[in-house]
């Protein structure tokens, strides 16, 4: 990146930070200024000098331009200035209604934005305060009337194409569960003003499938504002990375893009977090943990996304580290939703599920949009065997973020627990479409179809699971350049194989059944003895017995020495019978 581009990026970020702050869009402004400070430092003296000169020149130009601006005076803006100042102060003191009231008669675009924005915030605040129990149903779409009035007023100003009014419009449409229109608004807004990160975030939230996300990415890419402007392309790259991260997509390309951005923004925690999250989704916990450790050192008081870190520690069962993180977070801010999630994870790891639930609830009271807390709370309820509460929290999880495959899977499980397989089938389907590379999803689906007595479908899904399992193993094996190339055919999950065998048995297709039972038993060579392989062996023994292949039956039955007493008893009886028959045939032969 040359110095000119560096300078452009730097200026764009600085200006956006100031502009967003002026509009009271704090989160976006924060992002911009973090990115600004995350930029790489200029090394050489010449470059620094050049940079300073350029900056000074720009400032002078601006000043001159401001002196000469005689033409279009925005009368509305000038007349509203004083009221706007007052309103901003009210806004900063969190008196949103008062802020809106002051601006009632103002006509300038920025005043209207602030007015509608504060009405929106006030409404959000009230609905949050009014819902007492977070598992209450009522707060969904709490005050439509206010949304409608805001939307109506926004309609008037639609022709101005003000990016921030469009952003607000999108946010409200999204709240009203109208994602298509919301996406259009976000798109328009971003075309007008790409440096509003909150708008990108909302756009990502509104997307429900990866295909949609990719479509949007290409749409942006084709737009003249993005394909010709180097700076905007960088922002778009952020979008690309985040959508890949959010939809659990892995690809080489993304890693390259990440590295590219990290070169420009070596000190930008947000990017590092993305990297960590991608590793986390790729189940590379060690790498993720390491990145989080780095962030803790470079940006020690940052709590954003630390709940994900605690998830990683949980899965890795690093109790002491999690405990440290919990203490540390609560020393920074006890009442951040992230802190509460960390503490809840800690309690969960200690099997204190009630306490964990309490902390998740606290996190959700602090922020309804705490994405992972809903899902995690669902898990805790499952632990406590409270399926209904679990379903409720999973539902809310899916409501806030419909990309969370864990919540969908959890819903499936909870309904399965209630023997409502029709429902759980649908949720598993959802989960599987979000994570098609996870064999567990397919297994769950297969199990569901089996319960619904749809054996054919069940077989299909199990085969799918098997196929994925195999391909994954193959890739890993290839990647590792591993030595045991002869194993490529193996590595299949005996559980699935046994299930398949059982299903064919139910369909009375004994040939196929035999085939899978045999495969299952073959796995024993590689994976060692499991319940399934033993059961397969027992089944084979029975099969051979019925076919009167006594020698084989005897062989299978005698090899069985794992399983419950009933199985072993059965095996023994087969052994006895086979031995007798074998002896009998021998005697027959001899006689």
């Amino acid at each position, binding site marked *: 990146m040359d110095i000119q581009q560096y300078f452009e990026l730097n200026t764009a970020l600085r200006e956006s930070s100031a502009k967003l702050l002026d509009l009271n869009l704090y989160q976006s402004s924060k992002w911009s200024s973090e990115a600004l400070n995350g930029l790489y430092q200029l090394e050489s003296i010449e470059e620094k000098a050049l940079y300073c000169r350029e900056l000074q020149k720009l400032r002078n130009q601006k000043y001159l331009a401001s002196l000469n601006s005689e033409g279009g005076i925005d009368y509305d803006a000038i007349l509203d200035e004083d009221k706007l100042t007052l309103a901003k102060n009210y806004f900063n003191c969190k008196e949103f209604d008062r802020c809106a009231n002051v601006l009632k008669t103002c006509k300038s675009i920025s005043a209207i934005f602030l007015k509608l924005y504060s009405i929106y915030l006030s409404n959000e605040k009230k609905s949050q305060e009014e819902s007492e129990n977070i598992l209450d*149903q009522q707060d*969904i*779409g709490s005050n*439509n*009337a206010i949304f*409608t009035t805001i939307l*109506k007023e926004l309609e008037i100003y639609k022709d101005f194409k003000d990016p921030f009014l469009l952003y607000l419009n999108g946010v409200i449409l999204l709240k009203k*569960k*109208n994602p298509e229109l919301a996406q259009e608004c976000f798109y328009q807004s971003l075309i007008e003003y790409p440096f509003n990160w909150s708008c990108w975030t909302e756009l990502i939230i509104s997307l429900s499938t990866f295909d949609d996300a990719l479509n949007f990415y290409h749409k942006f890419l084709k737009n003249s504002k993005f394909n010709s402007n180097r700076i905007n392309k960088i922002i778009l790259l952020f979008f690309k990375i985040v959508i890949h991260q959010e939809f659990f*997509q*892995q*690809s*080489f390309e993304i*890693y390259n893009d990440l590295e590219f951005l990290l070169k420009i923004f070596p000190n930008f925690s947000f990017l590092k977090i993305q990297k960590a999250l991608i590793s986390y989704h*790729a*189940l590379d*916990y060690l790498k993720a943990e390491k990145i989080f450790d780095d962030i803790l050192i470079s940006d020690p008081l940052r709590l954003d996304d630390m709940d994900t870190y605690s998830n990683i520690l*949980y*899965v*890795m069962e690093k109790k002491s580290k999690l405990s440290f993180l919990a203490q540390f977070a609560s020393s920074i801010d006890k009442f951040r939703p992230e802190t509460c999630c960390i503490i809840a994870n800690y309690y*969960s790891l200690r099997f204190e599920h009630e306490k964990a639930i309490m902390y998740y609830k606290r996190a959700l009271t602090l922020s309804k949009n705490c994405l992972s807390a809903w899902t995690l709370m669902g*898990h805790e309820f*499952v*632990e406590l065997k409270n399926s209904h509460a679990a379903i409720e929290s999973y*539902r809310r999880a899916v409501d806030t973020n419909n990309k969370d495959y864990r919540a969908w*899977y*959890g819903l499936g*499980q909870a309904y*399965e627990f209630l023997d409502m*397989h*029709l*429902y759980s*089938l*649908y949720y598993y389907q959802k989960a599987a*479409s979000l994570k*098609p*590379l996870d*064999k*567990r999803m397919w*297994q769950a689906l297969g*199990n569901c*179809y*089996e*319960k*619904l*007595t*749809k054996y*054919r479908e069940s077989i*299909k*899904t199990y085969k*799918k699971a098997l196929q994925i*399992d195999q*391909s*994954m*193993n193959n890739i*890993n094996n*290839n*990647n590792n350049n591993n030595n045991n190339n002869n194993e490529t055919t193996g*590595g299949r999950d005996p*559980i699935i194989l046994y299930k398949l065998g059982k299903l064919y048995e139910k369909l009375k297709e004994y040939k196929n059944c035999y085939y899978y039972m045999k495969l299952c038993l073959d796995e024993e060579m590689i994976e060692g003895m499991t319940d399934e392989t033993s059961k397969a062996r027992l089944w084979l023994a029975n099969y051979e017995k019925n076919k009167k292949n006594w020698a084989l039956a005897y062989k299978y039955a005698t090899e069985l020495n794992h399983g419950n007493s009933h199985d072993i008893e059965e095996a023994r009886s087969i052994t006895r019978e086979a031995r007798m028959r074998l002896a009998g045939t021998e005697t027959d032969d001899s006689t």
Partner: protein
Amino acid sequence: MASNSPSSQHNSTLTISPLLINRRRDLFYVTPPTNVNDGTGAGNNDGSLSNVNAKKSSNLNSSKIFTSSTPASSSKLSRVAYNNSVGGEEEDEEDDDDEVDVGGDTRRARDEEKEQIPLSQADKLRLWRHDALMQHHYKTAEYIGDKVLALTNDPNDAFWLAQVHYTSGNYTRARKLLSGKREFDESVSCRYLKALCLTKLEKWDEALDIIGEINPFKNEQFVKNQDGGIKLEASMCYLRGLIYANQNNFDRAEECYKEAVLVDVKCFEAFDELIKNNLMTPKEEWELLSMLNFDDADNNNELVKLLYTTRLNKYINIKAYEEADSRLKEEYTLGENSDILLSRADLLFVQCRFQQCLEICEKILEKDEFNFTVLPNYLSCLHELGGKNKLFLVAHRLAENHPNNHVTWLAVGIYYLSINRISEARRFFSKASLLNPNFGQAWIGFAHTFAAEGEHEQAISAYATASRLFPGTHLPNLFLGMQYLQMNNITLAEEYLNYSYSICPTDPLLLNEMGVIQYHKNNLNQAEQFFQDALERAKDLNSDSKAWLSIHANLGHVYRRLRLYDKSLQSFNQVLKISSKDSNIYSAIGLVHLKRNEINKAIETLHVALSIQPNDPVATDLLKKALEENISSERNEEFLLKSEEAVSRYFKNSSLFKTKSVKSNQLVNTPINRMKNFNLNNKSTGGNNSNNLDVKVTSDIDFIVNDLKRGEDSSDDDGDDGEVMVIESD
């Protein structure tokens, strides 16, 4: 002059007011007032001086000059007249001079004359009596009036004495006095007052006997009123109407009121009764307006016409109203007048723009806190917009200050209705209707309380009462129709709605209901017609009003049954744009998706429906249906295929991606496995449930759909009912 006959019905009491003497002092001086048995009040209070002089010579002994003014005559006039009469003794209020265009010249001339002409003894007593009455010294007025009457025995003196009795509430005495002599009966004013007393005593039949069942002056040719007051003939017609209304003979009452306004346009009382009680259909109202002769109002004719125009119903001729409104604002600067604002509020109310209506009502009430004409509108707006707290305050203020007014108890009733305490609301509505049995709003509110509790029979009888009281408005019939619709009595419902339609064919709500009827009768095309029509009519309505929504929703249902699924979805989406809180709409959309075999969308939408209303039976059934569809093998095939793409995409990428070093066994560590105690495979508790499911699978989708149809539609009607209730629940 037409006043030669003894029945001076063309005049008002202004003619016989003692204050007129000032204007015709000459007559009065020449002729002693004792000679008055054939009252020929040739009053001409606004005639030019020459006119007066001309009369002086022609009508010397026919003047009826009496002391004291009627309370009915406008205060301004009487005050001016008063000033004239008492000249120097009383302090003149300066602003009076500007407002009276009786002609300054005339007055000045008279003032000059006055100095020369002393008043007679009787006249002085009359002035005394008059002033006493004006200052509410009833005892004085009675005492002196009695003496004047004794001295003169004049029917007009009797009239004024009776007037004193009447104002002090002694109706029986007034009546007794007026029945005293035969001559009194010949005087129109005396007859009118007597009948009025009888109505106060609620002796309707006797009152009717006195003023006659029909207008006795009907056949006489039209004569312009000369004195600027209200013609007694008109007042009598109005009184006749009032009596008929109290005898529940609304048709006759309507005729009489109309006659009153036609006889004298200044008889606002009758006009108000006609409009306020909706005795005429919207069209008739406008016809009446065109028939009215505004010449009676002299140079105010334009103003009066405009004012009356703003009072008419707002269903049709909005343009004429708007024009009148803007002219009143610009030419007469009456823009801030509360009645003009009120008519604007009425318009907004009819258009369902409650917020704006509320603002205007508040503006009016700022000036006049207890303006009882605007309060009903205000209260219903508050109810509509959920302003419970304000309703509470208003109701309390009213109850403290006006415990005997019916509007007060209406307010209390509406408050209870809005906090959903139906039985209390009912009690107060009934209290309001007891205080004023002709108060239609209270009756409707009363009926709504029954409707809200699903007591259809009682609601119907209450609505029927309301419809009897408001024969010219379509609303009670509309409500009746809706009640019958809910009771599934389509025939009766249609009958009522048709009747309502004949009164007002433009109300979108009514058209909506008509559409529902056709829908129930399976005339889908006709239903569509009605709904389209309703939408056309509702164009001016505020698009977030609930009425507008239910039309769209119903249209969606019609299209759904016509299998025009795209159109149907469009309609439903229109609804969702405004309000996303109705689970029925989501259920309906889910059903459409199901019919189109878009199972995923159907399931998603039904989930939304259930998240709004967790136990909605319709949505639950449909969801089950959709999920059953979902397990079919084609669906699975499709699903597998789709995921195949994703998988292959991944493998394509990852073949390039050699550095990745994920071991398959790490899969086991993902957060899902946190559910350790939740092992799927151990949980397979046998297929005891699958039997049930099999049974359900067999049921045909259309069967359920038909089953649901009724449920859905009627729930829609509920919604409609609710909003109509709100709209007119004043």
